[in-house]
């Protein structure tokens, strides 16, 4: 038994959802991914609770400090230890089964520890007072400490946490994926569904891992310099260049933007791999692998420099030509999306669909992802950016992209779950999950976009101006429905039943 399996066994409530099936000889592929997925659901509960306290502070007119605390905790928990970690777990399970290599050794352990310890430290930092939002708004952490709003200790604890989370996302996870895909010997007994690296279901994994590594490197350099200065290893004066707001902001968004694109590449790739398994005529092939790969490449090439759209309203400090470049590249990702829309729909049209809850979740999660894409390109336009930046539109976009990708992974997890646990999920509960998140997810997204269109600011503890509370109430209602869908999903995990057939055979089917 591996350490990962043992930790799952000892974890109350959540451990039961992900208890690893030890009878199949697949523990090397199952254990660490199962632990990561389990931990991601713990963080989902944390994020969900903070997510409801956030609007409650506004509705019941509580101390505005609580709003900013929960805002920071909710966003951070949802984006990193939930969404990214869920992707990491399911993605590693997929890679292992596709190339026949175990998810073992110190790398998955380090990635798991860095993500969860990091997220826990960041939570402690925020509870110590560091209310800086999900994107830290640099230099706000240092300015707040200078103004005495929070302590320097809170900054050091919070930054240490962020640093560990980034180490997981930029270094440990991508290196692990690359190591599994390109190095080591293939073990025939671990091959579940063989794929070549040029398969659309695998190409996205590779592009995504490389994107994380490359786009994250500037932030690792800047972040390491700042951390070294915070810990007193180098004098502050030596870190002066890295603490320049403009340097930190650009390094941060080159990564943060491409993090989202990398996650999109990875989930599209998982979608391309999973959809063919649910075609009615048993074809097990996409309409066109070439088109699918073309969409991934376009997404990659256009997304790298589209981060410039984060700074359109900084003109002329960001030269107008760069803003326009960011604008065009952002809309270019739309061309990639248009091609994947065609590929997915043409595949279903030509081969029929077995509409099981897992694939339906992945597909409707993808609809939500396309909705988000539309809102994202609109706000990346040089004209609209001036009316939308800093409003609820942006929060709607961020929340929707994270929720959409997470739901797609939750759908893909349906496919992996029986292999990991030897148990299967209830289809009736599954379709309730799909119904509820379709209403909750789309409703919350549209309500937030409408709030933004009406000028409602994001990260703003006073919704009771200009009639914005109306949008606030809508967001809460749809948020509750979305929350209910996650509860149903987890209830389903808890109530999953043993599969009678020998799992080893089914896993390879």
């Amino acid at each position: 038994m591996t350490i990962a399996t043992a930790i799952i066994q000892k974890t109350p409530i959540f451990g039961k959802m992900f208890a690893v099936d030890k009878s199949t000889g697949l523990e090397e592929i199952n254990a660490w991914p199962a632990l990561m997925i389990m931990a991601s659901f713990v963080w989902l509960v944390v994020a969900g609770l903070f997510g409801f306290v956030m609007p409650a502070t506004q509705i019941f007119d509580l101390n505005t400090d609580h709003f900013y605390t929960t805002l920071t905790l909710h966003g951070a928990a949802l984006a990193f230890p939930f969404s990214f970690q869920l992707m990491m777990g399911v993605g590693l399970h997929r890679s292992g089964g596709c190339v026949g290599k175990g998810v073992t050794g110190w790398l998955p352990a380090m990635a798991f520890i860095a993500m969860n310890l990091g997220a826990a430290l960041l939570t402690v930092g925020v509870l110590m007072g560091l209310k800086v939002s999900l994107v830290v708004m640099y230099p706000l952490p240092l300015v707040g400490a200078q103004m005495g709003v929070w302590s320097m200790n809170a900054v050091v604890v919070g930054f240490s946490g962020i640093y560990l989370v980034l180490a997981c996302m930029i270094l440990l996870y991508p290196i692990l994926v690359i190591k599994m895909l390109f190095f080591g010997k293939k073990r025939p007994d671990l091959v579940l569904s063989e794929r070549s690296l040029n398969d659309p279901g695998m190409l996205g994994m590779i592009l995504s891992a490389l994107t994380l590594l490359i786009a994250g490197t500037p932030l690792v350099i800047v972040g390491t310099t700042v951390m070294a200065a915070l810990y007193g290893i180098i004098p502050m004066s030596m870190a002066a260049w890295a603490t320049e707001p403009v340097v930190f902001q650009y390094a941060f968004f080159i990564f943060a933007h491409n993090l989202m694109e990398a996650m999109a590449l990875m989930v599209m790739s998982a979608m391309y791999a999973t959809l063919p398994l649910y075609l009615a005529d048993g074809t097990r092939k996409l309409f066109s692998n070439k088109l699918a790969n073309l969409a991934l490449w376009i997404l990659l090439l256009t997304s790298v420099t589209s981060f410039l759209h984060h700074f359109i309203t900084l003109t002329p400090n960001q030269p107008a030509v760069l803003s326009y470049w960011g604008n065009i590249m952002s809309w270019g990702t739309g061309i990639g999306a248009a091609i994947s829309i065609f590929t997915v729909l043409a595949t279903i049209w030509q081969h029929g669909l077995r509409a099981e809850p897992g694939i339906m979740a992945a597909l409707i999660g993808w609809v939500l992802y396309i909705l988000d894409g539309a809102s994202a390109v609109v706000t990346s336009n040089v004209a609209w950016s001036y009316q939308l930046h800093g409003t609820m539109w942006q929060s709607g976009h961020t929340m929707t992209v994270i929720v959409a990708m997470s739901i797609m992974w939750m759908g893909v997890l349906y496919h992996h779950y029986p292999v990991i646990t030897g148990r299967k999920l209830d289809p009736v509960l599954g379709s309730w999950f799909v119904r509820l998140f379709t209403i909750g997810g789309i409703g919350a997204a549209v309500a937030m976009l409408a709030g933004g269109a009406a000028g409602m600011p994001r990260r703003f503890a006073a919704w009771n101006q200009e009639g914005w509370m109306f949008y606030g109430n809508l967001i809460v209602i749809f948020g509750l429905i979305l929350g209910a869908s996650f509860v149903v999903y987890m209830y389903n995990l808890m109530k999953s039943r043993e599969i009678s057939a020998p799992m080893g055979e089914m896993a390879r089917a």
Partner: protein
Amino acid sequence: MLDMLFTGWGAFWMTLFMLVPFAAIFFYVVYRKSVTDSGPGTTPPATMSRIEGIWLAVVFVVFVGVNLGSLKYMPTIKAAHAATSNQPLHEVDVSATSWAFDISNRQIEAGSTVRFSGRSKDTMHGFAVYHPDGRMLFTMMLMPGLKNPTTLVHTFKEPGKYKVRCLEYCGIAHHAMQDELIIARNN
């Protein structure tokens, strides 16, 4: 027409314009091919490629149309227009510190064209101006440590009280960082 499109609500309707047809086709295809008849499609490959071509052409036209249309609304273009017109340009300097604005002139005559030049003295701040009817006219990002200010040219048409808000999260009193511009009737 374009003036209406490049507003907050214009963005909202544009998003729905992209989403609704897609969602309708998606649910139609999924319903038809999973419930009504999940048998293999009989559409010939030539028809599929024609649909693909038309679809990508539509996307391309929308893509180019919107981004060409928006050029006129780019601040640089607006500033260039203001510079070449004979209208006087009123300079207003904005300096942001947590959690207040220092604005060099809060009284502006309706009809005048103003160039706002904004800086931040401590952390990231925003400078957003709201029309008296509640919609946001524009926002600017003020980043500390930059040599030059962030600038934007805007012509105020209607008199009234225009709220100013910070739209870049700047700490626990962010929501209280507000100010006002008075646009006086032109006589």
